[in-house]
């Protein structure tokens, strides 16, 4: 591995790749800074630019966006009181009050360095645990992989804000989308006599359509309410008090380490991601604090807990993606789509077959963490200004880039129509409160699930083998537990909401 890592560092260390990481981080921070844009959207927009690149360069650019995006959410959170990404919601709790007290530079500086340390600690976790998990999962055969994918999908569906049934439905719809076109036995399915459907749907236009349209349309629908209730903005002329920040950080060493580990672990769990890490870490920091009542008033502790954890998700989320081929969260599902489109299949074999690529991901993450701090220090006040870009300009520009990206994938206009149709579908499902993450995960994992399931059945036609092999049975049991747990949780939420709903229903 050491030799591969050295080779990877040489590849990533050339000027071209470094400039790509720099550009990726820059765009990621900008994307994360703009409220409603999100890390996922930034990844989707940048992805088409990687089509003509070799895998290492393409991945380096995307990793840059990924790291920059998770750290960029702090800018609008502190300056506008609006989180740039859902993973920086708790940053606002203390970042915005600190900025209102006249210390926006301190809040941004603390967040920036906490993000940096969070990313570094999560890279260590990835380097240590990734190969171990991959080595262990080398023993997995089609039965275990099938069960693992089913578990990942049920877990994601179960975590969909009290909408288990809709989450499961969305996951199944996502899986179904991948059945269109020729299957592995060259039988045509669901083409309805329409020739372009025989090749099936490309993952990218489907993902962009479902995610980007629903996200952008929700931003458009929010325009009116935001304009009426705009928060007080902070002046963008910033001074960063480095000495004060160093003192703040040195007093919060345990908080940084604890929050980073929480972020890394949460990132490694399928279906959780930055938002969960953010809340969990903030909650833990508050509970373990000597004075919890100070949280929310603008203290460094809250900003550190929040930013260290959400940035640590970056490294953590790569663990299941690279080691098992199961993405940890939505941005990672898209990253996995990126790897697949570049001809790389993430999974246990990747560590054996593509050690240089794995090493280049480690190296890109590490370099991106340093570039992120460098960019934030130099350009913070510009990011603060960019965070105020209105949605009216952003939405058409992003939609245009989505269309161009979908077209450029195969130089095929049909992909632009796929984007449009799935945009409508995504928007309608969002209107019906159907969670979209399980659907996207289903699209990413669909082909692999079918391949593994039928490979297992070809080896042994009996379905019971799925439940007699220990690890396969274990993953199915976990899937069942995740569903039961979600049902119980939904009942508890429904029970707490019932009296309120009864009162509201009275004329």
């Amino acid at each position, binding site marked *: 591995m050491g030799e591969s890592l050295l080779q990877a560092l040489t590849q990533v260390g050339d000027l071209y790749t470094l400039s790509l990481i720099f550009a990726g981080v820059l765009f990621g921070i900008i994307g994360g800074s703009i409220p409603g844009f999100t890390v996922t959207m930034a990844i989707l927009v940048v992805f*088409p*630019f990687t*089509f*003509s690149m070799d895998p290492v360069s393409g991945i380096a650019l995307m990793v840059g966006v990924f790291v920059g995006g998770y750290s960029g959410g702090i800018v609008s959170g502190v300056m506008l009181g609006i989180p740039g990404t859902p993973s920086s919601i708790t940053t606002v709790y203390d970042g915005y009050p600190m900025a209102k007290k006249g210390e926006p530079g301190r809040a941004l500086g603390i967040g920036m360095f906490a993000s940096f340390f969070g990313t570094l600690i999560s890279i260590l976790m990835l380097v240590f645990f990734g190969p171990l998990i991959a080595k262990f999962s080398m023993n997995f055969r089609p039965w275990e992989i099938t069960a693992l994918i089913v578990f990942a999908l049920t877990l994601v569906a179960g975590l969909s*804000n*009290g*909408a288990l*049934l*809709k989450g*499961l*439905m969305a996951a*199944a719809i996502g*899986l*179904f989308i991948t*059945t269109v076109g020729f*299957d592995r*036995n060259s*039988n*045509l*399915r*669901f083409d309805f006599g329409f020739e372009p459907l025989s090749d099936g749907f490309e993952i990218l236009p489907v993902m962009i359509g479902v995610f980007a349209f629903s996200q*952008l*349309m929700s931003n*458009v*629908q*929010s*325009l009116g309410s935001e304009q009426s209730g705009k928060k007080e903005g902070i002046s963008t002329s910033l001074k960063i008090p480095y000495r004060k920040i160093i003192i703040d950080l040195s007093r919060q060493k345990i908080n940084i380490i604890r929050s980073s580990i929480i972020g890394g672990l949460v990132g490694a769990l399928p279906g959780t991601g930055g938002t969960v890490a953010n809340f969990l870490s903030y909650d833990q920091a508050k509970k373990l604090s000597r004075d919890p009542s100070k949280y929310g008033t603008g203290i460094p502790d809250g900003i550190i807990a929040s930013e260290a954890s959400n940035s640590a998700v970056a490294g953590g989320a790569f663990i299941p993606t690279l080691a098992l081929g199961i993405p940890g969260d939505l941005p990672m599902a898209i990253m996995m789509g990126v790897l697949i489109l570049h001809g790389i299949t993430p999974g246990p074999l990747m560590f054996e077959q593509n050690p240089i690529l794995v090493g280049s991901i480690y190296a890109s993450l590490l370099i991106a963490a340093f570039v992120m701090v460098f960019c934030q220090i130099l350009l913070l006040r510009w990011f603060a200004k960019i965070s105020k870009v209105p*949605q*009216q*300009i952003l*939405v*058409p*520009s992003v*939609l*245009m*880039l989505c*269309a*161009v990206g979908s*077209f*450029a994938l195969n*130089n095929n*206009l049909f992909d*632009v*129509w796929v984007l*449009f149709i799935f*945009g*409508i579908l995504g*928007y309608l499902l969002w*209107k*019906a409160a159907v969670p979209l993450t399980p659907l996207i995960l289903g699209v990413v994992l669909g082909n692999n699930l079918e391949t593994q*399931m*039928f490979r297992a059945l*070809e080896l042994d*036609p009996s379905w019971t083998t799925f439940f007699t092999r220990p690890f396969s049975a274990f993953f199915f049991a976990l899937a069942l537990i995740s569903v039961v747990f979600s049902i119980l949780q*939904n009942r508890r*939420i*429904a029970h707490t*909401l*019932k009296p309120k*709903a009864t009162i509201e229903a009275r004329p």
Partner: protein
Amino acid sequence: MNKDRYLAIAVLLMVVILFIESENIPEKTSWQAYGSALYPQILLGIIGVTATLVLLKSFINIAPIEQDGSKKRLVFDWKVFGIFVIFGSYAALLPILGYLISTMVFMVTMQGLLLEVNTPKKWVVNILTSGIMVPLVYVIFKFGLNVWLP
């Protein structure tokens, strides 16, 4: 009817259509353990069962679990409708007019809709943004990345 009922009925209708279509998938051959229709039929079964449960749940008088902004979601928005119409027209015009003209028209129209262009300043913003973005993306893709655009 609430939104869950609409959703469930629409999904069930789709399941029926797709299930009928799945009957056209070739039968399994002698060397296949299971036919190519089995996997999609299993998925249609899962979608059908979950949609039926959503439908049944919509009749049971229990407190709905509110999603974030679910009330906001149900409002019909003319701007959103307009965006879809403009995007659909853009997809149709792209092969006819080519990237530069159709994208320029798309950007100006879309920003016109969202910015509610009613002052000279907004017109300047609209034209400037479109005038910079469209050729910039063209140059990056065509000359920087060697990706052909229509």
